[in-house]
């Protein structure tokens, strides 16, 4: 499903001394099937943005279109539930939403609410539990007996079990160990390709954005600051520094390398091994010149 924001503004606690503008005239378009990274400093409106994607918040001004669902200031779609079954949101620290007696019941909670049949849930469970890296033996345990990392995986499984078409991820790897972070991000990436999802990833990690996203939106103070492919956005060092964001390490390295050796290796979202090879070739070329 396509996602389109048109002049969206959102004000928290409007008409009170605490009124606070979180989004201002935000417009963008995310075509179906893309993997978008939303990046911004704390308080830049990222979390408010994603709550518009499944109708948790209604814009104060402007309009949001998700597929055929239209949400604007005057009108919320009648079939919000249907929208929510097609847009899965993994919130920050999703393990805080676990509540049921067993892991299996908690994973089944979402699909059950959306009217998925028991046999179908069982079928999905068989695919999803190993996909998120959980042991089937854990299914009958209480979610509160698990480790933090396992709880995170259960919560994610609970969202995936609904089989959404749009997957919204709000810093899904915050607080995990490096290996867990990589595993979970790789899992989302595979899922994105296999099931042809539209994925919106909110992250602080430039590295993740470079590695997984094909489109980047940089937010600052509730407005869109930059937008484009990772190549376009991440090569603009000055502009990024102005909103307290850094260029990904890989590009930092590449810039330093080009400066030091007078080379012009272009950043084209190469993988690290691929880049190493290019560097090797460039260095070899330089040697033979001498």
């Amino acid at each position, binding site marked *: 499903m396509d996602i389109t924001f048109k002049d969206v503004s959102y004000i*928290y*606690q409007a*008409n*009170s*001394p*605490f009124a606070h503008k979180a989004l201002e005239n935000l417009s963008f378009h995310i075509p179906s099937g893309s993997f978008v990274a939303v990046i911004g400093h704390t308080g830049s409106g990222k979390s408010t943005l994603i*709550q518009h994607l*499944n109708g*948790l918040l209604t814009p104060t001004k402007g309009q949001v279109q998700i597929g055929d669902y239209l949400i604007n200031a005057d009108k919320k779609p009648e079939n919000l*539930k249907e929208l*929510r*079954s097609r*847009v*899965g*949101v993994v*919130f920050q620290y*999703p393990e*805080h*939403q*676990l*509540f*049921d007696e067993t892991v299996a019941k908690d994973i089944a*909670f*979402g699909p*059950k*609410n*959306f009217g998925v049949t028991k046999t179908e849930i069982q079928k999905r469970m068989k695919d999803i539990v190993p996909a998120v890296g959980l042991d089937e033996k854990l299914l009958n345990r209480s979610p*509160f007996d698990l480790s933090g990392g396992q709880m995170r995986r259960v919560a994610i499984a*609970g*969202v995936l079990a*609904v089989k959404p078409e749009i997957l919204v991820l709000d810093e899904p790897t915050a607080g995990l160990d490096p290996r867990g972070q990589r595993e979970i991000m790789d899992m989302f990436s595979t899922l994105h390709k296999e099931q042809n999802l539209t994925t919106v990833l909110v992250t602080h990690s430039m590295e993740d954005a470079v590695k997984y996203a094909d489109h980047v939106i940089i937010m600052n103070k509730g407005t869109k600051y930059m937008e484009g492919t990772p190549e376009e956005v991440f090569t603009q060092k000055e502009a990024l520094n102005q909103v307290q964001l850094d260029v990904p390490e890989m590009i930092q390295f590449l810039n330093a390398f080009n400066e030091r050796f007078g080379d012009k290796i272009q950043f084209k979202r190469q993988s690290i091994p691929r880049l190493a090879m290019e560097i090797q070739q460039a260095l070899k070329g330089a040697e033979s010149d001498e």
Partner: protein
Amino acid sequence: MNNTIIIGQYVPGNSLVHRLDPRMKITIIFLFVIFIFFANNVLSYSILTAFALLTVIITKIPIRFILKGLTPVWFLIIFTFILHLIVTKEGTVLIELLGFKIYSGALIQGFAISLRFFLLILITSLLTLTTTPIEITDAIEDLLHPLKKIKFPVHELALMMSISLRFIPTLLQETDKISKAQASRGVDFRTGPIKERIKAIVPLLVPLFVSAFKRAEELAMAMEARGYQGGEGRSKLRQLKIRKMDIIVFLFFLLIIAGLFVTRNY
């Protein structure tokens, strides 16, 4: 949904009311709540209403905001009014509605009691609107100090109060967060049959309790790590001091009370 509750919500400001010594504020409000029951005619009610409205104006908090925040209480006030209208049978019959005789006395009585109720809530919510929770607990600890003589755990009580006040907004935020997460998983808190809606509360309450207990444990650990060991010999960063302004305000309040006793019927 949480945005409408203002009881317990501090609005930063620098007005006279904000700067007043919190002990003075609590004393004045305590006395106001008592003396409001002595008002019994138009003049004495007007004096108290004028005092309350004056206070609201001085705080510079928009009146619309305060009234909106009292929405949950409006129901109670209106209910009181209607109850008095139906039950009280004094004075002359004004009109007859659906078999009920509305008496003039009932109208006056209902209006007076509702006004009393309204003023009570207005003035007490002004306390929390203009005073930080820390100031309130400091003041209460200080005011209850004499009870220490009879081994009453004043400091512990104040600590418990400040911790609960401190965590009200946190819990509200947490509730909002979890209910949004569960709504995204298809829970419907707002529509559907009552039985389903009650069942929908479980996925909200369980995580809320879990996180509250976890928070409590972490807080206790953090306090111990920083060497907290109770009230004995503990000094204070913020010293409360009665200033000239506080005395003037209190004298003004006494004047209001005197005015009340002069104007009321005996």
